[in-house]
């Protein structure tokens, strides 16, 4: 299988990288030549342009992406920064708007003179901004989940090393859904690129498992009332697969419960439908016993790793996934780890390439492309990952949790192999 090859090749490259690292370590306390040079050249901060959804429909994510980013930057700076230079986050609000997104990327490159741009979540903003980043030759590290990076739709300057994409997530979910919940699935998804990824890839994945999607219900992400869509759910549906985004997600899930009343089918949701929302909100009682995909479990689990513990504390999130200063302020825990991990990848890439300034941007991308195994660590608290340099996409474990006693309890963890699929692009063949 191609996935196996991919994996073994990854391991070989990892060994090479490891060898280089060991070589560097062998020189002892003496820094490599480039590092000394860089140090002498500049101690000005490395500027990371953070394209944040401070306002607009992605605002809840934006708030937590910002907190996570600031926490990661603090950890990196406390440990000496990047190549001896402090890391500075330059935040610009994109209003969760693709047009503004492209402008923000331009501001980073020309006005703020950032070294890289980073942090975008919503897929339509990524798709709107990435071409501009490519034209400006500005490395653009997105934290988006969309399949647009690995699909080959974007360019060599756009990378997604900190969060897995929808195609790999749903490939790993389909076997669980068909084995444990049912074969006849009705999908409810937002009507834009991210939702279409879900629609296309989950339909294919569940068919590969012998199941079928009996209805596909697309809802505009700006919708505020949902009951009118639910009669399209066929009566013979065994599983509802829901994923929703936007400011009205709570209404969506509540109205879903009101629609079904006491006779609900099995329900499998992406936590996106309730990110930043308390699962114990009034009207959500019907979710008890239903399952959720989570990129990273919101509630601290019994098998919580020390890395998750440290990361949670650094960002300021309690064991219930809420802010330590305000228990009603629920985090977007399933996604925001991507910011933390992406910043650490940028740091690792800059250190491996000896990044000294804008002239080294291509070297930085090559260094990130050369990455393969990213073991679970303080830099990767969500778990181990494998980066595919050709498709610019990272692969990792996925978590399925079940609503039990008002908490999301871990029910299943997929392997990384479950999430792999054949490459669709080789960005390394594109010229800089």
């Amino acid at each position: 299988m191609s996935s196996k090859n991919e994996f073994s090749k990854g391991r070989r490259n990892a060994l090479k990288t490891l060898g280089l690292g060991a070589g560097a370590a062998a020189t002892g306390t003496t820094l490599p030549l480039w590092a000394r040079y860089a140090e002498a050249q500049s101690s000005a901060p490395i500027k990371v342009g953070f394209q944040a959804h401070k306002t607009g429909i992605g605002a809840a994510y934006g708030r937590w992406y910002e907190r996570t980013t600031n926490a990661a930057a603090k950890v990196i700076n406390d440990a000496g920064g990047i190549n001896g230079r402090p890391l500075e986050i330059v935040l610009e609000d994109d209003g969760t708007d693709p047009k503004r997104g492209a402008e923000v990327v331009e501001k980073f490159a020309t006005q703020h003179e950032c070294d890289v741009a980073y942090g975008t979540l919503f897929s339509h903003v990524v798709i709107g901004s990435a071409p501009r980043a490519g034209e400006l030759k500005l490395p653009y590290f997105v934290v988006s989940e969309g399949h647009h990076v690995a699909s080959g739709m974007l360019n060599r300057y756009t990378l997604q090393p900190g969060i897995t994409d929808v195609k790999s997530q749903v490939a790993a979910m389909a076997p669980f859904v068909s084995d444990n919940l049912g074969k006849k699935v009705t999908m409810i998804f937002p009507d834009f690129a991210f939702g279409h990824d879900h629609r296309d890839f989950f339909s294919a994945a569940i068919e590969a498992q012998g199941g079928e999607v009996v209805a596909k219900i697309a809802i505009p992400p700006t919708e505020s009332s949902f009951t009118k869509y639910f009669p399209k759910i066929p009566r013979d549906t065994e599983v509802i697969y829901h994923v929703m985004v936007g400011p009205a997600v709570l209404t969506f899930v509540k109205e879903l419960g009101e629609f079904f009343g006491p006779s609900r089918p099995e329900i499998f949701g992406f936590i996106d439908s309730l990110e930043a929302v308390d699962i114990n909100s009034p009207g959500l009682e019907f979710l008890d016993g239903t399952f959720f995909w989570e990129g990273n479990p919101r509630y601290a689990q019994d098998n919580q790793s020390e890395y998750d513990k440290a990361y949670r504390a650094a960002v300021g999130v309690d064991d219930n996934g809420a802010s330590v200063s305000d228990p009603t302020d629920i985090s977007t825990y399933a996604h925001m780890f991507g910011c933390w991990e992406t910043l650490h990848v940028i740091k690792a890439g800059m250190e491996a390439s000896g990044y000294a300034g804008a002239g080294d941007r291509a070297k930085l991308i090559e260094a990130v492309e050369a990455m393969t195994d990213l073991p679970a660590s303080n830099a990767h608290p969500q778990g181990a990952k494998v980066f595919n340099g050709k498709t610019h996409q990272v692969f990792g474990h996925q978590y399925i949790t079940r609503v039990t006693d008002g908490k999301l309890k871990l029910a299943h963890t997929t392997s990384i192999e479950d999430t792999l699929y054949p490459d669709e692009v080789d960005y390394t063949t594109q010229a800089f």
Partner: protein
Amino acid sequence: MDFGPYLILASLEGAVAASVLALTAVGLSLVFGVMRVVNVAHGEFFMLGAVLAWFVATSVGGHPALGFVAALLVAPVLVGGLAAVVDMTVLKRVAYDPERTIVATIGILYIIQQVTLMTYGPDARPVTPPFNTRLAIPWFEFVGGRPQVYWPWGLSTTSYKLFVIAAAAVTLTLVWLMMSRSKIGLLMRATQLDGEMAQVFGIPVERIYAMVFGIGCGLAALAAVLIVPIQQAHYLMGTDPLLLSFIVVIIGGLGSLPGTVIAALLIGMSDGIISVFYTPTLAKILSTLLVAFVLVFRPQGLFGTRERD
């Protein structure tokens, strides 16, 4: 879902949308009818009502019903008061000149929206409904030629949604009584017919204007308080009600209250039903198309009267 239950569900959803829309649009229509002011900021007063409802409901503790009732009383009054102040400080200063009031209310739109963003923040926040019981609705089917009652899967509404419809109907009746039976209504109608003449007869037109603007925006705020336990308060929630209100008011006839209510029912119900059976996009296309037809063939609206010369 079978056709019958499907249609009932669609109509119920449409009725909730229509009642909120009717309240909002009547506010807009009142302001236009009496003052000839096109209030582009109307949707933001709607949003402000929802946001204030959240503030009031969360600061009042105890049973959710207490917070909701407090919000129902306080939020529309506060919004109405603010609107009256806006009228006196802004609209009066531009002498209610049609072009300048449009530009002024666009400015007010942005001020309200951005101040809300800076204070309340960009999040959607819920208000707990005072009561919310799921009510399953029975339907009948023919088994062997005889009708039999059964409970279709998914056919239900909630007690709160029914309350929204009832509350809107009561409020609209009160507005109609105020306009047609009360002294203040008489003064408003006199001002609407001829402002200068009303002034000559000693009607305090300036105060009537402030009051009408306050009542109009207060109605939008009331609609928002009613809808906020179903949806959530969010700083961008004013856009859709504004557009729909304009559609309704144009179809119904600017300044005609019965026309506005009937157009709101038409648009709200058809939006609910068409979105259920086809797509929400088609519903929007059809209502916009209807506006175009009305503007071309009956510019005074279905129930409006021609502009006096």
